[in-house]
């Protein structure tokens, strides 16, 4: 195996200096414009932490309480900043604790560079203390991974790591560095960013014939429908997307990760797709004649039953990842490319149009949904608080300017359905993997990624208990996040399914909670708990205005359900309102 360092050819005249492998790692970070690292030290990564001691003025390190918290924080940071998250963990258990976060970042295409320490190279394969084969464990959950045993490889491999994590369809990269390589002194020739790997095509040259074919389909359409995902945000193509939507006059609905790419109050934003999405977008998916999918991957939670999904429609699929085109839904025209480039090309070729009747049909379904579901959820007629009214009040107080970080479950669906957003990169959630425990650490990272913005973590009583130790990180880093626990005293989403599909056999979903306000207080975080409507508005205001982190626990209806719902195995047009 030839080393990657040999690939990095440099001119002989270049000045070199002797530095350690650990220093080379940190030099790479500085060259890549990294400002924040989330991590946890340990035996095998100690040389890097030792070097970090001298870099603390250039690199901020946030000490988390668990490596899973570290990587979720890295994800939150990446999602709000649009930059690459950077995470440190030690070998063995430190590395294995990253796996959930890697899987989450992989499925949600989040750019991350994770550095794990590893035992000395001569100990590899000997079952040494805290030795684990992290490369093989993380292979299916990384876009790329690599083990470094020689310090001379570090500059080139890290350059490659950042390039791969950020380019094309982003994803997590893990670099495992043996302790001897971290300690090794070598002749450092400087850092050269990677811009090309011969075996890697982050994006193609866009083929005009597909753009033309797509534009022709759109121009002939009578009932076209746009569905968009995170590709718009990852491609930093919000402006291009909006221009496309506005010129074509086509109604657009979003996937959970596409949320916030188009402002909530945009007249052509017709709502959320999928299992708990809005009525109109789901039903009309099976009525449109041309379906234009932008930067989304037809997840089963979006499509419902595939053989009854948009069968009547011609499908245009814009994606940067060619393996997504045709993976779940056969495309009539696949447009392979970065939507930042393909959307303007398409916008140029499409006719400026409006579809008043067609758009009105979405409005009609919207009215029906308002009447049947939304009105009662946002303005309940009973004394019991609903998650929806909490979100409504929050919207009114933040004006749609906050970053909303959600965990997984009922509160996530309610928050995504009802939260309002004025700007992109404002919704941080675990979409593809559905990782409970994501929100608290991700909110910490989200705040470091967007320090000037208000960050509200909305979490259920189940999820918060999975990573509650990160309150320690909140305390020590003095990060200012708002923790809003919506407590229904159940693992609510599972309970909802048990109610609807398992004859109300509530098997192990009754979850007890500690006194969260007391727990927060123990971590020097202010907080309060409310269970009555009359206090809600004030409590939210106090939370938002508090100088520093704040925990608000709201007791909500125990057995409320999230509707509408596309039951598993049903078509999107079979969506139920109750």
């Amino acid at each position, binding site marked *: 195996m030839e080393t990657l360092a040999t690939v990095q050819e440099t001119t002989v005249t270049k000045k070199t200096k002797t530095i350690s492998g650990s220093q080379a790692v940190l030099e790479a970070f500085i060259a890549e414009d990294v400002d924040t690292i989330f991590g946890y030290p340990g035996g095998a990564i100690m040389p890097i932490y030792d070097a970090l001691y001298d870099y603390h003025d250039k690199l901020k390190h946030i000490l988390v309480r668990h490596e899973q918290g570290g990587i979720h924080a890295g994800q939150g940071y990446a999602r709000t900043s649009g930059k690459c998250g950077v995470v440190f963990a030690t070998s063995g258990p430190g590395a294995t604790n990253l796996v959930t976060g890697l899987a989450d970042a992989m499925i949600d295409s989040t750019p991350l560079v994770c550095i794990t320490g590893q035992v000395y190279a001569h100990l590899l394969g000997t079952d040494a203390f805290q030795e684990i084969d992290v490369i093989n464990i993380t292979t*299916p959950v990384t876009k790329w991974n690599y083990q470094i045993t020689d310090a001379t490889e570090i500059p080139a491999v890290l350059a490659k790591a950042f390039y791969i994590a950020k380019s094309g369809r982003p994803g997590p990269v893990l670099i495992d560095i043996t302790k001897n390589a971290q300690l090794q002194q070598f002749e450092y020739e400087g850092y050269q960013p990677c811009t090309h790997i011969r075996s890697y095509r982050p994006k193609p040259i866009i083929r005009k014939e597909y753009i033309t074919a797509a534009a022709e389909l759109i121009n002939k359409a009578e009932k076209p429908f746009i569905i968009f995902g995170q590709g718009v945000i990852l491609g930093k193509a919000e402006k291009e997307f909006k221009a496309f939507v506005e010129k074509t006059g086509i109604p657009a609905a979003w996937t959970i990760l596409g949320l916030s790419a188009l402002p909530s109050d945009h007249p052509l934003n017709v709502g959320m797709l999928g299992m708990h999405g809005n009525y109109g977008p789901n039903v009309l998916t099976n009525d449109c004649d041309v379906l234009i999918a932008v930067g989304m991957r037809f997840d089963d939670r979006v499509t419902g039953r595939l053989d009854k999904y948009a069968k009547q429609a011609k499908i245009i699929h814009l994606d940067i990842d060619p393996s997504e085109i045709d993976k779940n839904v056969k495309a009539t025209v696949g447009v392979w490319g970065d939507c930042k480039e393909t959307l303007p090309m398409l916008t140029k070729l499409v006719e400026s149009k409006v579809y008043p009747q067609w758009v009105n049909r979405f409005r009609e379904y919207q009215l029906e949904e308002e009447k049947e579901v939304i009105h009662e959820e946002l303005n309940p007629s009973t004394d019991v608080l609903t998650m929806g009214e909490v979100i409504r009040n929050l919207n009114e107080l933040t004006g749609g300017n906050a970053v909303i970080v959600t965990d997984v479950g009922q509160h996530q669906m309610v928050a995504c359905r009802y939260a309002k957003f004025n700007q992109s990169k404002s919704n941080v959630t675990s979409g593809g993997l559905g990782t409970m425990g994501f929100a608290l650490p991700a909110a910490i990272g989200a705040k470091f990624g967007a320090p000037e913005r208000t960050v509200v973590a909305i979490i259920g009583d189940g999820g918060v208990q999975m990573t509650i130790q990160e309150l320690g990180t909140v305390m020590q880093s003095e990060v200012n996040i708002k923790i809003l626990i919506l407590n229904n005293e159940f693992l609510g989403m599972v309970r909802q399914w048990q109610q609807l599909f398992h004859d109300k056999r509530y098997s192990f979903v009754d979850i007890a909670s500690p006194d969260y306000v007391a727990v927060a207080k123990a971590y020097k975080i202010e907080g309060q708990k409310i269970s009555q409507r009359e206090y809600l508005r004030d409590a939210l205001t106090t939370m938002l205005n508090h100088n520093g982190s704040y925990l608000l626990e709201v007791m909500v209806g125990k057995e409320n359900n999230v509707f509408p719902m596309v039951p598993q195995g049903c078509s999107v047009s079979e969506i139920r309102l109750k």
Partner: protein
Amino acid sequence: MQKEEFTITVYTENHIGLLVRIATMFSRRKINIESLNTSPSEAEGIHRFTIVINEFEEVVRKLARQIEKQVEVLKAYYNTNDEIIWQELALYKVSTDEIAEKVKVERLLREHGARAVVIRKDYTIFETSGHREETDKLVEVLAPYGLIEFVRSARVAIIKASHGFHEKLREFEEAQPGEEQIENEFLDKQSEVFTM
């Protein structure tokens, strides 16, 4: 549609761990690999995987694209058996006494194109190459005469229509992607759908 034998040819960098990365593409989908061979290719420094599976074309196409998506993979092709020329190598260990005594064995070996690789007092090793049925056949006919050991290699295959990888590699090495790099079998084969 029926499952069919497909040969997947993957051109890759020589990178530790890539074998696992490619193998998990199959195991994740619970697809059994019938045969897997790695070897150098016609292009210097580029490795070539030859993988045989029994699957529906639809599945194989998606798999090939997932494989090609891996950072260290340059290109993945899949072909049906009539699009390739392939061989497998087999070795057979037979008692030398048995061969010396029974003239019929010698005839059988000759009929099956077997070649002696090693002849010792106690045993002789023969080699044949061919398609699986051919190497299997010899196992069958040698069985009555005491076949001591048998082993067969993975399939190696040449794609009939391929012009080799030299040209492509040059394209891949360009910082700006050339025409070759924008090729996309899947999109291109869909030409019929553009007739509106």
